């Protein structure tokens, strides 16, 4: 029983929280390093890495999950401990929150010199001395070394009222209690600091839980489709049809945006909802979010191309539109033209030509002309027509336009933790606002026969500085001096 209580207490201490944050920081930093230096594909090429590292190192790396450290048992373990500690701190933190922010009351007694809390003191007799000029020698020495200054209860009340008014001007809420010794008071500022703190901690917990749900229950898949293609959604009878895919480019050829227009289809193939999806603007149906993730062009096929040719030096330029697999007779010649090859990104290597990427960086068509000159073929380049070459043919050919076949890359996600994460982020933002825009200050003080005494009973969100305390003391000196000076006048 004692041990259980000890473990419980150990888990909720500030020291444990700090230790867990430190361990989590260290674990994240290690994960950061490992994820960069250890290849992620060790399980796909096990033989290669075993040969390279040896069995022991490979097994160790694999066991510790260093190739994917943030999903390893040790990182998840640290995260689980952190979450547990956070949960316990929240459960036990309510008491602190209510005591410090809501059940605020004046003290029943106050002792000078108790504890290490910063304090300030203003005595009536010191005030009296500072209120009398030295040239009034008799009065000065009388107050300094002679009779104690006498302050009655009316003056104590007046003193308290002035102190309270000053503190209220500094955005403190003040509560007081009258006793035989004088007026005891508490002053509180920044009461939303602790609720903000609590809200922020709850929010971190909510985000962590939301993230964990997403990690275990969420699903995402990238699917590629051309215009008219239908994709089946996972775990659902629904499907989506790509109605249109459009790439918007600037005059300089830079991509401004890419947009997919799609329809959600029910099991009978009827459209139930249409969405326009682009980067930063996903579509949604039920639990599915559809993101415009990427796009590419078909490396094998194009939609159509426009080719211009001119027979002889002075012949007229003619244009034709050609599609893959088509054989077209060229007007005013006895030739036919056919596209025999296509590359969106033509490159030449040691072993011949190849396609460098699935983007339209250097589109080219390989055409074949058949007719009286036999079968002649060559490459036509869209961006570099000076490299066009078809040998032994008294004609020039160029390609003016190639319409590629675009594939839109759609990411289909379902994440049941999304709402929790968004809720957590909102709560955390509000919590941070309260937490960092207000500094908690609880002052406890007494205005009595000796003077004013204030201690800084609790502070959070930035320490009260010596400068702040001395400034406050200076202000209160000026405020309270009037009472003593008036008293001195009465005595004379």
């Amino acid at each position, binding site marked *: 029983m004692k041990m259980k209580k000890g473990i419980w207490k150990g888990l909720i201490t500030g020291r444990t929280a700090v230790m867990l944050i430190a361990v989590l920081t260290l674990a994240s930093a290690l994960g950061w390093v490992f994820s960069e230096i250890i290849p992620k594909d060790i399980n796909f090429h096990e033989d290669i890495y075993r040969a390279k590292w040896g069995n022991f190192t490979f097994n160790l790396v694999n066991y510790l999950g260093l190739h994917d450290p943030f999903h390893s048992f040790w990182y998840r373990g640290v995260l689980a401990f952190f979450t547990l500690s956070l949960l316990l701190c929240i459960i036990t933190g309510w008491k602190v929150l209510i005591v410090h922010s809501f059940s605020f009351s004046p003290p029943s007694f106050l002792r000078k010199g108790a504890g290490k809390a910063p304090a300030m003191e203003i005595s009536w007799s010191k005030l009296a001395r500072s209120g009398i000029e030295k040239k009034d020698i008799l009065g000065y020495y009388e107050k300094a070394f002679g009779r104690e200054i006498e302050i009655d209860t009316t003056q104590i009340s007046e003193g308290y009222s002035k102190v309270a008014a000053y503190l209220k001007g500094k955005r403190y809420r003040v509560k007081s209690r009258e006793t035989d010794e004088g007026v005891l008071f508490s002053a509180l500022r920044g009461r939303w600091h602790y609720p903000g703190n609590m809200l922020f901690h709850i929010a971190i917990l909510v985000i962590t839980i939301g993230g964990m749900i997403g990690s275990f229950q969420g699903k995402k898949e990238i699917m590629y489709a051309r215009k008219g293609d239908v994709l089946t959604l996972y775990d659902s009878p629904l499907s989506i049809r790509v109605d249109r895919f459009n790439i918007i480019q600037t005059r300089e050829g830079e991509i401004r945006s890419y947009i997919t227009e799609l329809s959600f289809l029910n099991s009978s193939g009827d459209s139930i909802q249409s969405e326009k999806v682009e980067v*930063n603007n996903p579509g949604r149906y039920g639990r599915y979010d559809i*993101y415009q993730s990427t796009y590419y062009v078909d490396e094998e096929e194009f939609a159509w191309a426009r080719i211009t040719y001119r027979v002889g030096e002075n012949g007229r330029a003619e244009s034709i539109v050609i599609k893959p697999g088509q054989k077209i007779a060229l007007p005013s010649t006895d030739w036919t033209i056919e596209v025999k090859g296509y590359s969106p990104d033509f490159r030449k290597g040691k072993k011949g030509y190849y396609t460098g990427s699935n983007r339209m960086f250097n589109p080219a068509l390989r055409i074949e002309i058949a007719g009286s000159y036999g079968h002649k073929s060559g490459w036509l380049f869209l961006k570099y027509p000076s490299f066009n070459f078809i040998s032994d043919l008294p004609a020039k050919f160029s390609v003016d336009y190639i319409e590629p076949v675009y594939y839109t890359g759609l990411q289909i996600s379902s994440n049941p933790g999304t709402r929790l994460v968004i809720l957590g982020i909102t709560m955390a933002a509000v919590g941070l606002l309260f937490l*960092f825009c207000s500094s908690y200050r609880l002052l406890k003080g007494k205005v009595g026969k000796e003077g004013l005494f204030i201690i800084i009973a609790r502070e959070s969100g930035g320490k009260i500085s010596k400068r702040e305390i001395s400034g406050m003391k200076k202000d209160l000196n000026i405020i309270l001096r009037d009472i003593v000076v008036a008293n001195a006048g009465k005595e004379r």
Partner: protein
Amino acid sequence: MIDGVLDISLFWMAFWVYLISFLVFVVFFAVRSRLPGRIAVILFFAALVLHTIGIIARWRFFGHIPLATMFEYSLVLSWIIALSFVLLLFRFDFMISGVVISPVVIIIMVIASFLPKEGSKQLMPALQSYWFYIHITLAALAEGAFLVAAGASVYYLFRSTKTNSDSGDRESVEGLIIKSIRIGYPLFTIGALFAGSLWAWKAWGSFWSWDPKETGALVVWLFYTLILHQQSRGRWEGRTLAIVSIVGFLIILVSFLGNLFLGGLHAYV
């Protein structure tokens, strides 16, 4: 065309004036006479003006806030640090810390000088979002605040080694370190982590991808969370606070430069 070159020329001019200002700060530090200190501050201010005009010129030329590349981010970050220092000079007698803050600005500008300087009038599709402004601006402000804390920490450590140093001065510098961290922390949390996560969710369909930059930001956040927790427990004050604040700066530096050689989703330059 002139506009496109103008900003780079202004940044170079600002760099040289910052450098001269740093040298004068060193002289001020050595002789402790007010005159070189004032000259250094005036030079620093002049460099800041050039730096500001350079940023405005680039903004005007490309038509968007210059935060789209690492080069632009570095320039804005160094500008925030320089501006914070000038603003702090109005509040604190903080002239001597110019000897620490000006080289921080210069180092970041040197890093920027090695980065590709080309910009584009057309932001890539992923960056065309209001989150771009919120996420990157707040992250830059937060990192600027943390770097100011680190600069003040170096100053604090230097002062604390002097046996006759004024405790009131040290207290105000310690206050500045704490305040800078307390300003930077919520900005970093909201700007770098939350706004970044929400933007990632909108653009990539996932709040968190364990991308090197994201992980770096998490480590930075956890480290400053640790500092604030220790602060609330009355620990890590004075020299310790100054040392951990400098360690925080080093972590930021690794995270800041991380995507240049680590790649990932944030490698957009």
